[in-house]
Structure formats: C-alpha cells, structure tokens
C-alpha cells in the first residue's frame, strides 16, 4: 500500500472499533434484558420486552456493520478470525436468530405458547452473550488452544454476560417504575459486583498471559495512566453501588446515572482492549496494514461512510427521542 493511503487502515479500524463498541453498548443492554427475564412474573417480562421493543433491531445492525467493515476492509482478518471461531460463531448466530424471532412470535403465536417463546428469548440471549464473551476470550488469547487459554475464555464468557446483564439492568432502572425498577436495581447491584471482579480478573490474567501487552501497560510513562483509570473505575463502581441501594429515589432523580456509568465502563474496557492490540487485528499475527483491502475500494466506502454515518447517528437519536422516558405498553 502506498504511503499516501497509510491513514486508511487506521481510519477503518477506528470505524470498526466504534461499531463494535456501539454494538456492545446498544445490543448489550437488550441482550442483558433478555438474559434477565424472570421466570415468575409475566407482567414484568412483558414490561421488560416492551422497553427494548423499538430498539433491538437497529441495535443488532451495528454488529452487521462491524463484521461488515471487517469483511470489507480487512478480509484476511475476517477469514482468519471467523474460521478460528467457527463453531462459537455459529452457536452465537443461532442464539441471535432464536431471540430475534421470539420477540415477534411471542405476541403473535397462540397465547398458550407465549411462555415458551419467552423462554426461547431468554435462552437465545444467554447463548449469544456467553458465546460473544467466549469469542472475545479466544481472540484476546490469540486463539491459543491451551487449557489456560480456554479457561480464560470461559471466564470471559461469564464476565461479558455479567457486563451485558449489568447494562441491561441499568437500562431497566432508567426505563421502568415501581416493582420492576426495584428488582432491576437489585439485579444491577449484583451484576455490578460480578462485573467489577470480572474486569479485574481479566486485566490481571491478560497481563500475566501476554508479555507484550504487559510491557505496553506497565512500562514508564504509560504506567502512570493506570492510576486515573483505576480511580475512575473505582469511583464509578462505588457511586453506582451506593445509588442502586437508594432506588427508587425521590422523583426518580438520576435514574439515568447507572446506565451512563455502564456506558463509561464499556468505553473504558473497550479503549483498553484497543490500546493493548493496536496495530494488530489478529493478535500477534496480522496488522491492520497487512490485512487491508485495496485503497481505491476503501476510499469508496470511506466517502460513503463520511456522509452516511452522521445521518444514521442522527436518525438513531431521533428514534430514541420518540421513545424517550418510561416505557409504556406497546401495541401496533
């Protein structure tokens, strides 16, 4: 690739990273809500599903965009990564398919089947979150087949699921009222602790497994950065924990705070991951510069993205505004 276009792979890895991040936050909360569906309360299940109803579809599209950018801009990486993760990917997809269709079938199929579709919704969500976490773990450990690496991936599966449940519970605290809100606050408290432990464990494990990454973080002067980052983590974790004990607050003050905190945590984790691996797209094997497509094709998509992405973000915000505030009963 000529020097003139050296910036293109960097821009595209940025776009891809952004899409994955938006996906993790947006589909993260609706997957989390799916995993949290309670067995014992039909009314709460309805309420929870109404709260994500208008959004899940567009949320999932960010995954298509992210994987699409990888396919288009870094085709070699797409085939190495996804072949290495072939079965977990297939399992994740069946999970996503199951939950996506259950959302519609549950209100349209015979009413006696509704409970079964709710269960399918919950299981589909759980399958998807576990396999995404497992895939992340496999990716981070460079698809190593050792039992240590597999163990790490299983840990990652649980942590990512906890993270999604946390952001899902925070979403519910923001979007619901009454008993459900209180219940959501309890879920959020538990998953907040789980997630904090998980993040610490994953960070520690990652630094131990990989010397290059340890070098990247622990050498001077970057190591100083760890202090404000850890402080921010601790602050967010503690304040959210305290806030959740107060739910429902008077006039519902700050009901958006846990969700915002979850978004901040997701962004931090994601940035950390990006920093650890840049410029590799397949860890320790292939850099973004080696994997990139021809510059002329990237340019065509780049200009498209420059015009279209702001429009997409614009109408996404519009859609969220239309369904702003506490969830009401949805019918059509």
């Amino acid at each position, binding site marked *: 690739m000529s020097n003139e276009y050296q910036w293109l792979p960097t821009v595209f890895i940025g776009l891809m990273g952004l899409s994955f991040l938006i996906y993790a936050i947006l589909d993260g909360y609706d997957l989390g809500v799916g995993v949290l569906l309670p067995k014992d309360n039909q009314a709460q299940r309805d309420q929870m599903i109404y709260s994500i109803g208008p959004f899940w579809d567009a949320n999932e599209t960010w995954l298509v965009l992210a994987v699409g950018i990888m396919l288009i801009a870094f*085709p070699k990486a797409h085939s190495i990564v996804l072949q290495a993760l072939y079965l977990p990917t297939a399992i994740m997809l069946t999970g996503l398919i199951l939950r996506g269709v259950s959302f519609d079938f549950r209100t349209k199929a015979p009413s006696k089947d509704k409970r079964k579709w709710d269960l399918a919704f919950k299981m589909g969500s759980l399958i998807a979150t576990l396999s995404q976490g497992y895939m992340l773990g496999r990716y981070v450990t460079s698809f190593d087949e050792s039992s240590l690496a597999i163990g790490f991936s299983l840990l990652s599966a649980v942590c990512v699921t906890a993270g999604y449940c946390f952001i899902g519970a925070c979403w519910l605290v923001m979007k619901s009222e009454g008993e459900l809100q209180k219940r959501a606050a309890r879920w959020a408290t538990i998953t907040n602790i789980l997630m904090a432990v998980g993040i610490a464990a994953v960070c520690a494990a990652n630094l131990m497994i990989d010397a290059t990454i340890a070098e990247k973080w622990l050498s001077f002067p970057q190591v100083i950065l760890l202090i404000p980052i850890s402080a921010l983590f601790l602050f967010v974790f503690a304040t959210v924990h305290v806030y959740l004990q107060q739910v429902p607050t008077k006039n519902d003050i700050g009901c958006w705070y846990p969700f915002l905190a979850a978004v901040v945590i997701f962004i931090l984790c994601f940035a950390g991951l990006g920093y650890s691996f840049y410029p590799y797209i397949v860890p320790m094997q292939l850099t973004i510069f080696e994997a990139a497509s021809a510059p002329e094709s990237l340019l065509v998509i780049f200009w498209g993205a420059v015009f279209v992405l702001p429009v997409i973000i614009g109408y996404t915000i519009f859609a969220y505004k239309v369904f702003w505030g506490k969830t009401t009963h949805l019918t059509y």
Partner: protein
Amino acid sequence: MLAFAELASETSFMLSRIQFAANISFHILFPTINIALCWILLFFKFQFNRTGDESWLRVYRFWVRIFALSFAIGVVSGITMSFQFGTNWPGYMETVGNIAGPLLGYEVMTAFFLEASFLSIMLFGMNKVSNRVHTFATLLVAIGTSMSAFWILALDSWMQTPSGFEMRDGVAHVTSWAEVIFNPSMPYRLTHMVLASGLTAAFLIAGISAYRLLKGDNKRSVKQALHASTALAMILIPIQIFVGDLHGLNTFKHQPAKVAAMEGVWETSTNVPLLLFAIPDEEIRTNHFEVKVPNMASLILTHTFDGEIKGLNEFEGKHPPVAPVFFSFRVMIGIGVLMLLTAAIGCYQFLYKKRYPNWFLKVLVGMTFSGWIATLAGWYVTEIGRQPYLVTGVLKTHDAATMLPADNVAMSLTMYLLLYTFLLIAYIRTLFVMANRAVKLEEQNPSIEDMRNEALADDSIDTNALTQGQTQSLAQGKTTDKGALV
C-alpha cells in the same frame, strides 16, 4: 493419505455449498415478501389518509404485524450471511473483495439502518408521532428495503456478468463503478426480482384474505385487501412474463451455457424445439421422455424459427449441472402460468360476477405461498446456472472454498437446518393463527378503537374460545355457500 485429505476437503466444500444454499434460500423468503409488502402497506396507509375510511387502517394494522414478523426473521437470518462469506468462502473476498466489499458496505449503510430505525416508528410510533411522520417513516422503510434489493442484486448480477474491472495479480480491481453496478444483467435481474416480490406479496395477501373470507370474516377490510391484491397480481404478472423474457434473452447473450441447461439443449443446432418436459441425463448427455413443441425455443430466444442455440456440448466441463437448472426453470414457469390464470379469473369474477365463488377462494388459499416457490425456483435457475463459477469466468466456486474441517461445517449445517425448519413451520402456522384471531377479534370488536388493543388481545384470547367462535360463525352461515359477495 492424500486421497483422504482430498475427500475430506471435498466433503467440506459440498457441505459449505449446502449450508450457503440453505441459509440464503431460507433468508430470501422473507425479503421477497417484504420488499413489496412495505410499498403495499404504504398504499393502504395512503388510502386511509386520503379517504379516512377506517377499514383501510384495519388492513394496514393486520398486515403490518405480518410485515414485522417477516422482517425480524429476515434480519436475523441475514446476519448469518455476513459471517459466512469469511468463514466458508474466504477465496471469494480474497479475489473479488474490492468489488463485493463496497457493494455490501453500501447495503448496510444505506439500507439496513434506515429500515431498522424507522421500522420501530412505523410499528410502535403511531401514537407517539404525528400521522404525517408515521406515513413518512413507512415510506422510509419501503425505500430502505428497496435499496437493500438494489445493492444486493447489483452484486449478484456482477457475479453473473462481471464488468468494469481488471485482474491484477489474481485480484479484481475496479476500473468503473458505474459498469460494476449497472453490469449487463443487473437492470433485468433487479426488475425481475422486484416484480417477483410484488407477486409473492400479492398472492400472500390474497391467500390469507381468502382464508379469512372462508372462515366467515365478511368485514369490508378483508375484501379490500383481496381486491387490491388480486388487482396487483393482474397488473404485475403480464409485466413479469415480459420482463422474464427480456431477462432470458439477456442471459442467452451473456451466459449461453445457462440457457442451454434451462432448455436442455445438448448439441448446437437450429430449429430447436421447446421442451415442455424431459429428463436430462448428463451421463450419456441426452434427454429422455421429451415432450416438445417444434421450433419454439429458437423462436423465443432468437425470434426466428431457425435461430441457432449453442448446446451444452460446446461448454463441456464449464456448464452447470443440467437437471436442477432444467427442472427449476419449469417449476418457475409453471407457477407463473398458474398465477396468470388465477389473477385473470379473479379479475373476471370481480368485474363481471361481482363475487368470488368459494372454489376460487380455496384456489387462492392454495396459492398463498406460490410466490415463494416460484422465487426460489428462479434463484436456483440463475445461481446453479452460474456454476461451476462463483464469478463467471473469474473465480470457480471450488477455488473459493474453505479449509475448515468437514465435521465443523456438518455441525453448523445441522444446527441451521433444524432451526430453519422449526422457524418455517412456526411462521406459516402463526400466519394462520393471526388470521383466525383476526376473524374472531373483528366479530367481538367491530369498532376501530378496539383494534388498537389487538396486540393486547392477542395475549388474552384463548385459542379454544377462538375455535368455538369459528365453529359458531360457520354454523350461523356467515359464509354463504354462494361465496363471498364483493
């Protein structure tokens, strides 16, 4: 040992092909309905806005729910596709990624987000935004589905008739985007597919509406839907036959081997007969049990009785498997003819008899999913007809295949097949459950205000009560044996 490795990779190749075919066949069923259904919904909405007639709103509400269900299945089954390009067909992106990539990218950016975001407003926003914004959201979803069709058909057509590129070191590089997008077969294939979508949606609406009439649902809204869909079918089917012919001529020019397989022509010759039926035998390269119309194939393809058609023997080793292409083609044409007859009878009944007889309603119910079968058959003709190439003349399917172990592919394929079979059954069953429920509900709640709570009522109506209700209404003779009056 080597032979064993070859066998294993051959198995993996075949399984990948079956998996891709299964995925895309299942996926295409739902966009095929929705590309056109969304425009039809927009038409219903406009009719309501224009006339203020609440029964148009009823039609809209009933079909928007089916649209939403089909949309959800279409979206989630489509996600699978974006993963498979890399996992099962790595050679595809390595060779033609510079072309396929941007086209797919534009599909995601200009279509997927537009559809997904405004669909929520279209579905749940009726009470949250103004009527105008709601109609506009419906319009945007319709534009989104059509944009999606545009990009994906541009890519598919490029794989059939590639142009606007050059090969450098075994990799395709674009020389002209206009030629890539508007490649020779693209306008024909896009039009053919959009019309197919229109027909699929029209017969689906007609079939379900006929079913409701037979069940005693004599509401005006059901009849309006039936009239609109029959009229649409009558308008579209002659156009489709005309466009299909043009598309065939285009294929004859650019992919003669495919046409030879469609027509079952082995030896290059003039005065070629049209085979109504035959069993092509690739082993001895001839047909058995031919039923033919003399000179017709020559006439259709060259517009002269003694026109020459190139035979399959000219393309030995480079032509598709004959039998699947040959039979799929006849299935598609056969259903096309049935559609023409059905639509014509429907219009005749509507215009001159002012009523649909019961037998005709039953025929319509039988034709509910005819569009699916014709569309699938059509796609099999064109995609199997492209073999052994993935991109005509550029990349053979075999060379794009994965190195994945066959048992992994077997496992994923089994999972997908089980899931798809289950979902297909659930989908078809749910359509009729929804139809039954609408019959029942409209008897209970004749006023439109209560229709708002249809989804709510979905949860509370007991299926047993529903069946009783139907039996009662039938017993009361709501469907007269004279049929449904217009």
